[in-house]
C-alpha cells in the first residue's frame, strides 16, 4: 500500500504512532466501512503482541464455530487489506495523496463506490488526491467531472497528457450522459490488444 512497504509492517507502525484517540476514531470509521464491504467481519481493533510488542490489527469474523473467528492482518484477504489501507490514508493527513489503482483486489460493486467515497472524504480536508486507474467500475460514477480526468497516452516521445473534457468528442459524449468509463477507457486500449489472445 505504502511505497517501500510491501509487507505492511510500515503501515502498522503508522497506525501505532497515531495517538490513541485519533486511532480509535479512525479505526471505528474503517470498521464501519469494512462491515459493509467484507462479509462476516464484525469488529476491528488495534492490539500489540504480548511477547514482542509488535503492533497488529485484528478482526472478529462471525462464524458457526465458537472462538474461531479472530484473525490477524496476515490472515486478512488482499481486498480487505487494501481497503483498510486506502481508508486509513484517506483519513490521515491533509497533504497531497496519490492512490495507484485503488480498484485492485476489490469487488466491482465496492469499486463503483470509490469515486464518491474519496470525493466525500476529501471535501472537509480540502486536500488534493490523484487517482490512477484502469477500472471501468471506478469510472462508472456519473458524477465524475471530465475536467478532472487526465488521459495519459504513452508515445515514443514520452507520455502525452490531455484533459478528457478538452477532447471535443469526449466532451460531447460526457455531456450526452455517457460515463468517463464508457468514453475515456476505450481510448486507452493498446491498439494491438486483440493479438494477445492469439499468442501461441
Amino acid at each position: 500500500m505504502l511505497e517501500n512497504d510491501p509487507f505492511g509492517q510500515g503501515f502498522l507502525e503508522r497506525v501505532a504512532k497515531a495517538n490513541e484517540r485519533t486511532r480509535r476514531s479512525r479505526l471505528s470509521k474503517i470498521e464501519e466501512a469494512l462491515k459493509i464491504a467484507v462479509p462476516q467481519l464484525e469488529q476491528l481493533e488495534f492490539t500489540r503482541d504480548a511477547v514482542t510488542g509488535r503492533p497488529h490489527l485484528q478482526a472478529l469474523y462471525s462464524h458457526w464455530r465458537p472462538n474461531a473467528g479472530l484473525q490477524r492482518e496476515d490472515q486478512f484477504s488482499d481486498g480487505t487489506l487494501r481497503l483498510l489501507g486506502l481508508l486509513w490514508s484517506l483519513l490521515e493527513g491533509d497533504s497531497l495523496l496519490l492512490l495507484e489503482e485503488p480498484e485492485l483486489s476489490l469487488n466491482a460493486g465496492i469499486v463503483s463506490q470509490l469515486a464518491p467515497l474519496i470525493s466525500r472524504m476529501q471535501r472537509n480536508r480540502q486536500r488534493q488526491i490523484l487517482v490512477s486507474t484502469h477500472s471501468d467500475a471506478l469510472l462508472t460514477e456519473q458524477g465524475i467531472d471530465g475536467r478532472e480526468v487526465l488521459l495519459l497516452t504513452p508515445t515514443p516521445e514520452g507520455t502525452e497528457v490531455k484533459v478528457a473534457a478538452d477532447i471535443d468528442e469526449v466532451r460531447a459524449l460526457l455531456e450526452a450522459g455517457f460515463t468517463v468509463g464508457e468514453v475515456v477507457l476505450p481510448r486507452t486500449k493498446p491498439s494491438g490488444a486483440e493479438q494477445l489472445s492469439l499468442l501461441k
Partner: protein
Amino acid sequence: MSERSVILAVEDKLSEAVSTKILEDLGINISQRLGLKGKGYLQSKAPSLNQTAKGFPVCMLTDQDVPSQCPPQLVQAWTKGERNAKFFLRVAVMEVESWVMADRRGFADFLSIPVNRIPEDTDVILQPKEFLVSLARLSRKTRLRQEIVPLPGATSKVGSGYNSRLGEFVHSRWSVNRAASVSVSLQRTLAQLRDFDLA
C-alpha cells in the same frame, strides 16, 4: 481537406472488427469507440447518440436477430423521434456473422471447408452464429475448430477463441467487396456509407 471521422458504437467484438474493416476500406477514421456491452445497451444509448450526431457523425451497427423486426422499424423505435442526418444506424441481416460468411471463398478457405457448404445468400440464414459454429465443426483445422466450437454442455454458444479468431480473420483476410457481392444487407450499408454526410 478535413479528415472524415466518426464515433463508432457496436454491440460486440465481432461487430467492432467488421465495422472497423469496412470504415478503413472507405477511408473513414474512427475518432471514438463505444459499446461492446450488448444490444440492450446500444438501444438505450441510441437517442442520446442521435443528439450527439448533430456535432459529430455517429455510426452504429446492430444485429436484426429476429426476422419479425424489420430494420426500418428498428431504426425508428431506437431513435425515438427523427433520425439525425449524421446518425448512421445500420442493422445487419440477421447478424454480423452473416456478413462475415458472405465472403464465401475467403471464409471457406479460412475454415478449410468446401465453399458450397456456405449458402449463396447468407442474409437468409436464420441463426447465423449457430450456423457459423456448425460450419466450424466441419473444419479440418483441429485447433481452429476447438477454439470456435463450444465444449459439449457449455453454457456459452461459442468457443473461447471465437471472437479472437474471427476478429483476426476479418482484420486480415475478409474481403468487404466479395462479401457485399453476396449480402444485399452489406451492399446497402456500403452504398449508404459512401453517401453518408461526414462533413
